[in-house]
């Protein structure tokens, strides 16, 4: 029964009727429509829901609304005045502390309370005080900087200037290469930015999925009668009610059903879907659905799964549960190993990790009366969702509109279509009402698509001088129940090992195995981080074996520009050596190496990635990125329409910067509309670190087309030849006589008046025919490759095994950084995420395949208190294929972290740990075993 409460929110008194179970968070969001306060975990673990209750910061998800009766609440909406941002908000915007922005409102409220309690906290105090607010994007670095800046604002102190040496390739540019705040940052800082779950439509229903409690079973019957009879339930759908069509991510491996048909393959597989007036009713209805299962034997270990007698997940395919097998051989490894003076082979094991974007997935579908469906969704890939819905709903693309709202991070978790995107459409059709579906944190883990756990046997041969002569690599990827991206992951695991070091002989054997666990997919660095961890570890071990400095062995083999790898990948720009030299110098490698006390260690690791995949996920001839720029009739604003998705990485800003540079206008003259299939031309979305290069090229091209037309218009006004004109900084002027000029907008106005709309179009397709001719040659191709190196220093508690990461010194060749502040943010975020994966993260299952840590309480990710000092450099580099010389940094920056940290730990404790995560328990065990060996010998 509802009770009336009185609550004062941001100074306004509200009298509201609430149910006993309603939390303060739900009251704010659902009843008072104050959606700035976010919902990340619902269990007190993430801090996204932080508000100030009677002067104290609390997690509003753990406060009953009824308990807040008579109290005062301050939320993010109450912080800014009508004209000015609060100093903390201002600092977050300026310092680049906001990426996806989902953690931001809670984080800002917490910072406000920190500074209220202590106006002058030290950096260490800030790190500790913020540790209840998780951020998956920023690596906390810029957040801490923002707190320090806010402190200075509030106390009226001087702001320390940021020292930044611009890259050479950006020196002559006006917009590109500048450290600019993201255009969406103010909206994200004030809680104004709407994420999918912040939207509500009239008559909107909620939907929920019934998940399998068993790891492997036949469905004998489903009885929905009792559930349907529950008041408030509007529809229930099972496998019989949805089309019999297989879907998934890569076309050769479409193997998922919309809802289970006869069989479930893991704890979390989708059995049925319910729509009801609210989520609570959905949950109650789910409990009333009676499913009769016949349990089948299940298999969770990939080695077991490959055995002859193992239970099969699919009767009609994937013999021995081998979902994908790859057998690549380039050069001749027998010859290569024969040439080697030293050969070493080791087994490395990765961990099953989950992206954990702070925003849970959410989708809302609504049909109009003309047979069109509109889906608002939190996705990285509007186009692939569009394409997949068109297949499943059997509708032309034109009858489906997919709109990406603000997206609270993805990292691969939202890089393909989800069940709720599909089922919200079906339920909305069935009920005739808009239907919202969202995952809670547990459901996110169960939907899965995180990192494959890889078992890697790696063998490297080198000459005495360190030259690599051959590499043999066998990887077994534990893939979970369905394919998802897995086939691509398995190819990437092999193909990307060749881009950092030059070697001619390489063999890769890859197996992706199905098990009765949540499906694995693409997680930042897609398939590559574990093999890279193995490679970087083994290379450092080999360097030790042959008495060579680990950085020297890397320099010896380092990739160089304009090189074709043994597996036919074309490297163009490459400043890998500069990265290595930079980190060597700034970490004081030479003086530290070998001279640190026991328990302290230093290690090097390197990485690199594609700047966008050379080929799309399904075969199509569409350009990969497309842009339209439309100039307003008075020339005052450029509207950029771009299909690619800003999931927090900052692509709206970066793409706008590329467009502005090309047009000759400043950033205040542009507005961006992105990722809406009705409004924006197709873009493949945010995956494979593709947007800066591909989207950037499309925007640059569109901008150039605008400029060309404008210069023509200006030439008529100025009565000079168009080709002696230039556009820059909102002016059009004669190149040699800049004093002869007209304002940019005047030319725009004139153009429109004489010719009608001023529009520029741009598109980008990777060069045709990238890569070799062998099977799988497409995976790993890209117009450009990034490179990076990082040195890590750690301190290990030799008695408990706990690792404290002190420093990361990293350097990146990302070409020209279009927005260096965003590029650094990507690097810092990658450092902390990579570190978190190495030290903490692992999905754990019981013997029945039920995940034991599907939350943020037991699946730990790094907090601000765990954060090391990070010093990132963007080296001088120019990539001819990229816009203004740019290439990627988002995914590549993760790759060096794993190996560097593992190497630093090995250096600190004197033994190597081959299996991730490197927990204190493993460290202590390794130390004990090493001591035992030492004392035995």
């Amino acid at each position, binding site marked *: 029964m509802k009770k009336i409460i009185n609550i004062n929110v941001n100074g306004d008194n509200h009298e509201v009727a609430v149910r006993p179970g309603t939390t303060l968070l739900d009251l704010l969001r659902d009843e008072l429509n104050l959606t700035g306060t976010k919902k990340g975990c619902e269990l007190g673990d993430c801090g996204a829901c932080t508000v100030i209750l009677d002067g104290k910061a609390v997690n509003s998800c753990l406060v009953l609304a*009824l308990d807040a009766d008579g109290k005062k609440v301050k939320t993010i909406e109450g912080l800014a005045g009508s004209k000015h941002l609060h100093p903390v908000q201002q600092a977050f915007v300026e310092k680049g502390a906001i990426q996806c922005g989902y953690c931001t409102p809670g984080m800002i409220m917490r910072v406000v309370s920190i500074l209220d309690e202590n106006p002058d906290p030290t950096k260490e105090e800030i790190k500790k005080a913020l540790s209840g607010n998780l951020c998956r994007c920023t690596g906390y670095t810029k957040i801490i900087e923002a707190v320090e800046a806010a402190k200075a604002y509030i106390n009226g102190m001087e702001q320390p200037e940021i020292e930044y040496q611009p890259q050479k390739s950006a020196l002559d540019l006006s917009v590109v290469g500048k450290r600019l705040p993201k255009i969406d940052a103010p909206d994200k800082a004030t809680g104004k930015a709407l994420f999918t779950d912040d939207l509500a439509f009239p008559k909107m229903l909620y939907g929920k999925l019934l998940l399998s409690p068993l790891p492997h079973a036949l469905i004998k019957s489903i009885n929905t009668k009792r559930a349907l009879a529950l008041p408030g339930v509007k529809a229930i759908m099972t496998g019989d009610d949805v089309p019999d069509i297989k879907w998934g991510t890569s076309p050769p491996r479409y193997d998922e059903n919309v809802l289970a048909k006869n069989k479930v393959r893991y704890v979390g597989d989708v059995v049925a879907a319910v729509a009801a007036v609210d989520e609570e009713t959905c949950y109650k209805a789910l409990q009333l659905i009676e499913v009769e299962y016949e349990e089948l034997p299940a298999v969770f270990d990939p080695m077991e799964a490959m055995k002859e007698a193992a239970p099969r997940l699919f009767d009609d395919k994937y013999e021995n549960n081998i979902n994908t097998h790859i057998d690549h051989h380039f050069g001749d490894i027998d010859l290569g190993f024969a040439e080697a003076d030293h050969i070493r082979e080791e087994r490395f094991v990765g961990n099953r990790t989950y992206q954990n974007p702070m925003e849970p997935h959410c989708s809302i579908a609504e049909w109009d009366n003309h047979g069109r469906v509109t889906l608002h969704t939190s996705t990285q890939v509007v186009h692939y969702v569009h394409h997949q819905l068109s297949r499943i709903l059997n509708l032309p693309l034109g009858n489906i509109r997919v709109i990406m709202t603000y997206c609270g991070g993805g990292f691969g978790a939202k890089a393909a279509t989800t069940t709720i995107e599909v089922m919200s459409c079906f339920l909305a059709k069935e009920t005739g009402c808009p239907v919202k579906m969202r995952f809670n944190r547990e459901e996110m883990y169960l939907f899965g698509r995180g990192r494959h756990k890889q078992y890697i046997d790696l063998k490297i041969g080198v000459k005495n001088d360190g030259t690599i002569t051959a590499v043999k690599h066998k990887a077994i990827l534990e893939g979970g129940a369905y394919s998802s991206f897995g086939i691509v992951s398995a190819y990437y695991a092999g193909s990307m090992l060749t881009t950092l070091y030059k070697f001619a002989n390489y063999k890769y054997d890859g197996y992706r195995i199905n098990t009765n666990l949540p499906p694995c997919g693409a997680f930042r660095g897609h398939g590559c981080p574990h093999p890279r961890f193995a490679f970087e570890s083994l290379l450092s071990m080999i360097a030790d074996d042959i008495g060579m400095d680990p950085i020297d062995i890397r320099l010896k083999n380092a990739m160089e520009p304009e090189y074709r790898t043994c597996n036919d990948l074309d490297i163009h720009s490459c400043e890998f050596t500069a990265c290595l030299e930079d980190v060597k110098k700034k970490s004081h490698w030479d003086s530290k190496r070998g001279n640190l006390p026991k328990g302290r260690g230093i290690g090097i690791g390197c990485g690199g990635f594609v700047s966008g995949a050379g080929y799309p996920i399904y075969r199509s001839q569409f350009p990969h990125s497309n842009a339209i720029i439309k100039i307003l009739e008075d020339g005052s604003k450029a509207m950029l329409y771009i299909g690619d998705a800003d999931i927090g990485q900052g692509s709206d800003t970066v793409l706008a910067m590329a467009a502005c540079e090309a047009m000759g206008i400043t950033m205040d003259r542009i507005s961006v509309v992105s990722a809406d299939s009705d409004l924006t031309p197709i873009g493949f979305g945010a995956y494979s670190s593709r947007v800066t290069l591909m989207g950037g090229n499309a925007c640059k091209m569109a901008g150039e087309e605008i400029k060309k037309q404008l210069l023509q218009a200006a030439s008529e006004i100025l009565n000079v030849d168009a080709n002696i004109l230039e556009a820059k900084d909102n002016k059009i002027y004669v190149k040699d006589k800049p004093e002869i000029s007209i304002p940019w907008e005047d030319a725009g106005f004139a153009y429109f008046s004489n010719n009608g709309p001023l529009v520029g179009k741009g598109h980008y397709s990777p060069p045709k025919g990238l890569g070799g001719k062998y099977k799988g040659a497409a995976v790993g191709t890209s117009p450009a490759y990034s490179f990076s190196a990082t040195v890590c220093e750690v301190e290990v508690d030799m008695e*408990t095994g706990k690792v404290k990461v002190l420093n990361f010194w990293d350097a990146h060749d990302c070409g020209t950084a279009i927005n260096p502040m965003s590029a650094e943010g990507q690097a810092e975020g990658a450092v902390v995420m990579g570190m978190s994966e190495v030290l903490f993260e692992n999905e754990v299952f019981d013997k029945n395949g039920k995940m034991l840590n599907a939350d943020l309480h037991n699946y730990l990710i790094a907090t601000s208190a765990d954060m090391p000092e990070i010093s990132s450099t963007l080296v001088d580099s120019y990539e001819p294929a990229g816009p203004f010389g740019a290439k990627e940094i988002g995914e590549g920056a993760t790759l060096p972290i794993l190996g560097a940290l593992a190497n630093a730990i090995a250096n600190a404790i004197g033994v190597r740990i081959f299996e991730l995560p490197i927990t204190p328990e493993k460290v202590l065990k390794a130390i004990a075993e090493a001591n035992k060996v030492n004392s035995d010998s």
Partner: protein
Amino acid sequence: MYVSDFTYLRPKNLEEALDLLQNKDDAVALAGGTDLLVELKTGVRLCSHLVSLADVEEFKFIKEDEKSIQIGAGITHSQIMQSSLVKEHIPALALAASKIGSHQVRNNGTLGGNICSAAACCDSAPVLISLNAQIEILDATNKKIIPLEDLFQGNKINTLKKGQLVSKVIIPKTGKGTGVHYEKFGLREAMAVSVVSVSVMLKIKNESIENASVVIGAVAPTPKVSVAAVGILIGTPTHLLVEKSDPILRVSEAAVGDSIPIDDIRGGAQYRRDVLFSLTQRCILKALESAQKNV
């Protein structure tokens, strides 16, 4: 996620609260909610009546008398950290409180809720037990005082009966020469549940240990006094208590001997023993240091 149906009751004072808890079926007290709401949302617990202690002002005090510090069950961990009485007399409790969850959790989570949840890994109990703290238990008709230790029955099981509330924790004041320290080991720097914890109380007289307590946490179903460790400590000359000295190692071994850890997602039993061994040594030295300062 949602909280299943229940009736919400908000008594205006202690008397009403006790009455409701006694007379309503399946009634559960709600303090800060940081444990209870998690349990209700994840469905591991159901209740039909929730009795909010929000207005029970009688539980919200920290005071002292000649012999003890008394902390009301409704005091939050943040209030403990800020209390000048606590900082002066039981700094180790302020330290333990600072290691609980996050700032937000500490702002709502209460001392009463922490001990009544009776988790093996609970962070406030070890220090309190090492100080021989007692609790006052009330119901509609009775009042009794028992050692805090006796509240714990098993992991997440307390010994309270229907209708009972813990009203306060009574911590005896320690004399000169006493030092207490708390060590917590979690898997990350903050917001981590204890994998192992230890609280050590030492009282020095005439350069030797006159009285001691060693309480180990997260290594048994309940926080536990290591009787064996205490036995070795008492009578030991303080100059022998130095890093890796024989008595320190023996005390730590004894603490390990008294532990009955389990394997779980946070660590194996053997690992817990290993960490307990190291943590106990550190904790003794720190406790000794503060005892020596407290002359």
